[in-house]
């Protein structure tokens, strides 16, 4: 019942947004934006790029919500927009061959963003934090070796727990293709991280 009510709420919000009700659209954004930001942040690696993807995705959704025909869920639709933007970002990054995500501190010095991810879990200790950051850096490096498509399928499946059928819908391909892509991605990652096991 709760899920169905949420779907009815979203449906009503979408219909209102299609009539030009900006407040309804903003409410709709709040239902999905944290998940969108989490995806963009992990894929792009920087808060600035994640914000840009977030902005572009929801502006695109706002401009095109009149074309939304309820043929899929709004969740799938917005994820499709976000993943396309992230795929563009990954493809541009592959061309530029950027390394690990970095940022600049006020003095102009660069630092690795991965070093800045705070560990707020209970019981964290410095040694384990260091090992976790090193693991994170190695995994991040291995993920860079995947094609953008492989990276996206792996990201959606592994980090966001989506069913491969949903992944296929989001990427506008079949579930079977998503499965094959996941298989290729994990084979490559195992190869890249073989020394860590």
């Amino acid at each position, binding site marked *: 019942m709760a899920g169905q009510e949420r779907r009815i709420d979203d449906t009503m919000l979408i219909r209102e947004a299609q009539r030009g009700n900006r407040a309804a659209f903003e409410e709709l954004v709040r239902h999905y934006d944290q998940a969108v930001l989490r995806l963009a942040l992990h894929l792009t690696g920087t808060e600035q790029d994640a914000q840009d993807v*977030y902005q572009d995705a929801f502006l695109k959704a706002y401009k095109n919500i009149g074309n939304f025909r309820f043929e899929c869920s709004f969740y799938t639709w917005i994820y499709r927009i976000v993943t396309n933007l992230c795929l563009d970002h990954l493809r541009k990054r592959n061309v530029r061959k950027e390394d690990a995500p970095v940022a600049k501190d006020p003095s102009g010095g660069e630092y690795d963003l991965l070093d800045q991810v705070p560990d707020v879990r209970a019981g964290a200790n410095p040694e384990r934090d260091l090992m976790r950051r090193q693991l994170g850096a190695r995994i991040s490096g291995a993920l860079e070796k995947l094609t953008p498509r492989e990276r996206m399928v792996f990201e959606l499946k592994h980090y966001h727990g989506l069913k491969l059928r949903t992944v296929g819908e989001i990427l506008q391909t079949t579930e079977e293709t998503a499965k094959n892509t996941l298989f290729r991605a994990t084979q490559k990652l195992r190869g890249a991280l073989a020394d860590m096991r």
Partner: protein
Amino acid sequence: MKCEWVRENIVLQVYGELADDARHELEQHVARCADCAAELKAEQEFHALLAQDRAADATPNLVAASRMRLQEALETAKQGSFFSRLAFDPANWLRQVKFSPALASAILIFGFAGGIVTTYKFIPHSTTGIVQGPATVPVQTSIAGIDSISQDPNTNQISIKYKAVSEEQKQGSLNDQDIQQLLLYAAHNNYNSGVRVDSVDLLAKRSGDLQVREALMYALQNDTNPGVRLKSLDALGNYVKDDTNVRDAVLRALVNDDNSGVRIEALRLIEPVKADGSVRGVLMALAAKDQSTYIKSQARTMLAQLPEID
């Protein structure tokens, strides 16, 4: 062959994506095959290693900053105009066509098979205009789109490739497959609502056909003309009891349609199935929150007629 199948599916097993029968088969094989068992163990260990790396949630500051930035942009952003919603969206249309191979074939036969790809060459500043073209100019042609424009730097000749579509006519009975495919196309795509009403009216006589029923559900959900939507609803009414897809489509119309006539008709059609769980859920939401007093009271009346759920 079996080991190969198992190796390809081990990652799906680890992610819980295998169907029950496939999972059982894999487990049976792994119990007998040491190599595959080792491979499964390696994959599970690798999965456990990866699980230590999580995608961090966005900080509350980042979420708040992103929302504020979006709000500012929305103040000046414009939604797509009324005309852009009516405009033909080739990408969206192609996505619909890909699920309808018969429709795609019909389109090839009747629509785009009638198209002509022609190259015209123009010399700038020439008084003659068209220098070269097709041997004959077809009657009632219209330009469907320009594919490419290029200019030869040596000769300054301009080449334009364009598509032209010619008008054709087909006659036949409702049993004629080609006629049915054209009616389906008309129900989905025609800009003239009168044509869409006519096509839906005719298609309603074949609503037993699943492809036709899908077209009617599509029209109910997406057509901008309430007359078309009402005709589709009428045609689908007989299938609300037996076809859950039709039932869901009628429920969506009841919840979402902006025309009260369509909503009231949808409410009338779901009355015989009001005991269904999903119908009951929608009726409860309408009885609590609907803006239409009539629909709210009708929903309450229907709920009152239902037995209590233990």
